[in-house]
């Protein structure tokens, strides 16, 4: 993939496979769940990307592997040019301080027995920030950044005393507290009401711009991703099937799966009630024995016999920086 010269690559993922071995029975071997299967991309400093896919497509596993919570089976992840697997535990700890994580369910992500100060203080203590005054200062500035003011009113609160939107702000503040270079946000707004959703997305976008953060935004909702990221990667059954700039992907989707996702996403429009949607039949495949060839072929309208069902499509570059893994563009 061509890399722009002006921005250095922060995170580079090459041919990443994350497979989970199934439980063995006796001496037998039951196979693997191929959760992430050959994913490659580069993320530049200060860039926001969206990874879109349905549940079970492996996007959470991809995210966990980036966070260093899962071990890759094959392939490599390098951060600022250094590969993760070569890092020792001390370097890994430093890496984790460079990567913030915004969870999906804010209430589940915050320990119920800690107040906001304690929640925000803990990462700093773990990473050796000894001075109490310095920590207090940092807590104050982070909370101000996520618009939890006046700060004094919030630091003593426990998670259950906050609204959903405020909880998500605390989660974001915690992700930001060590001044990371990269934020991984896993469906950060899917648990929130529509009116709060936009507020949180704007906050994330503002933080991204002001700190020159790289952000990986993982979601199943195409309509929010366009307000947030510069590039979108569409994931299906463990593979990235299409990678493109946001506007290009929305204007001119190439992969049949991307096309289906776009068709299925509704805008509020009274005309919708009168029409049926063209949705591909069936459900995403099991990742234990994914179909041969293109993984989307059993549901695809445009399937090419003896090609799509036999041979896996490589990435075709249909436009500059627009890649799609589909035989239609061979």
């Amino acid at each position: 993939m061509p890399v722009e010269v002006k921005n250095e690559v922060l995170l580079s993922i090459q041919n990443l496979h994350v497979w989970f071995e199934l439980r063995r029975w006796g001496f037998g071997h039951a196979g693997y769940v191929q959760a992430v299967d050959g994913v490659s991309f580069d993320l530049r400093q200060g860039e926001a990307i969206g990874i879109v896919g349905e549940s079970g497509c492996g996007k959470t596993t991809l995210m966990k592997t980036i966070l260093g919570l899962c071990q890759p089976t094959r392939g490599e992840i390098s951060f600022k040019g250094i590969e993760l697997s070569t890092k020792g535990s001390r370097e890994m700890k430093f890496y984790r301080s460079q990567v913030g994580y915004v969870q999906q369910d804010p209430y589940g992500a915050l320990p119920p027995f800690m107040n906001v100060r304690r929640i925000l203080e803990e990462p700093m203590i773990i990473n050796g920030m000894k001075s109490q005054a310095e920590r207090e200062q940092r807590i104050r500035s982070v909370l101000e950044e996520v618009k939890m003011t006046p700060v004094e009113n919030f630091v003593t609160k426990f998670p259950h005393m906050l609204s959903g939107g405020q909880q998500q702000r605390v989660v974001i503040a915690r992700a930001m507290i060590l001044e990371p270079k990269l934020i991984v946000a896993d469906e950060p707004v899917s648990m929130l009401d529509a009116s709060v959703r936009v507020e949180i997305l704007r906050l994330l976008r503002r933080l991204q711009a002001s700190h020159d953060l790289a952000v990986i935004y993982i979601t199943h909702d195409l309509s929010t991703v366009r307000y947030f990221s510069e590039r979108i990667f569409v994931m299906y059954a463990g593979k990235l099937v299409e990678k493109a700039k946001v506007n290009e992907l929305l204007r001119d989707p190439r992969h049949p799966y991307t096309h289906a996702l776009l068709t299925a996403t509704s805008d509020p429009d009274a005309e919708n009630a009168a029409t049926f949607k063209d949705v591909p039949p069936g459900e995403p495949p099991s990742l234990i024995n994914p179909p041969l060839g293109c993984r989307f072929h059993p549901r695809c309208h445009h399937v090419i016999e003896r090609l799509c069902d036999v041979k896996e499509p490589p990435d075709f570059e249909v436009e500059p920086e627009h890649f799609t893994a589909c035989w239609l563009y061979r």
Partner: protein
Amino acid sequence: MQQNHALLRVEDLVLYFRTTQGAVQAVDGVTFDLGYREAVVIVGESGCGKTSLAKAILRLLPRNVDAYSGHVYLDGTDVMSLGDEEFRRQVRWVKMSLVPQAAMNSLNPVLKVGDQVAEPMMVHSAVKKDKALTQARTMFQRVGVPVDFLNRYAFELSGGMRQRVAIAMALTTVPDLVILDEPTSALDVLTQANIFNLLKRIKQDLEISFILITHDIATSSELADRVAVMYAGQIVEVSDAYRFFTEPLHPYSQKLMASVPRLRGDQEPEFITGQPPSLIDLPPGCRFAPRCPSRFEQCKEDPPMVEAHRHQVKCWLYA
């Protein structure tokens, strides 16, 4: 209003819950009606009382009810005057049924899904089990679940399939009205689209009316003939879908529409400042006034429901 033409007419329905902090005014004077073969969508943010409204209509009440009053006319008869046992025999699941929120998790894990779909028929229509199962089989075909799934348990099905089973359960007795509480909020986009295709087909084929309760305005437009917007226990706007989606009138509806991120079109979504009020401690007058950009002196009083541009709006701007 034309009582003869409405399948369901809800009049001044009130449901309060008793808590240690005071009465929660979950449903506070809700009035709307629903025609035959019509789908009305009730939209609102979480905590606005929309699920309680569904429970109040079906009389599925918890123990801590503080107040429960008003009228629910179904086909012209006031079902609120029926006793609990009569209501259960004559109305619930016979004339009205419910697809509960997170229906996919509300299936019984230790019963086969086929038996669960057959059960309402055995209870309400005094049908023998084998006949009920045959009926369940046709219902499975209708909702697009393979018939050999009859003998499976809930955990063996995917989320979308479980949702379809829950819909089949609500349809087996062929009621006049099905209340769908957030039927697709936990599902993926493609599955969501599939379920809405299915609901549209059922609405056409079986001539069933729907009340769809949701917080998601974008997908609600898939089924809506009419839209009712709920805020803090009250309905603040009712209008037909076309007028609502092109020109919402109530300031809250306008804000709500503006907050929806759109895939097509370039408006930046906006957010609504402030938070919905607590249903225990409600502001006097218009409940949206504290967050409303166009509030004025009169908003200190409770606005009436008025007719404006063929919408019904509860707002002083149009009174």
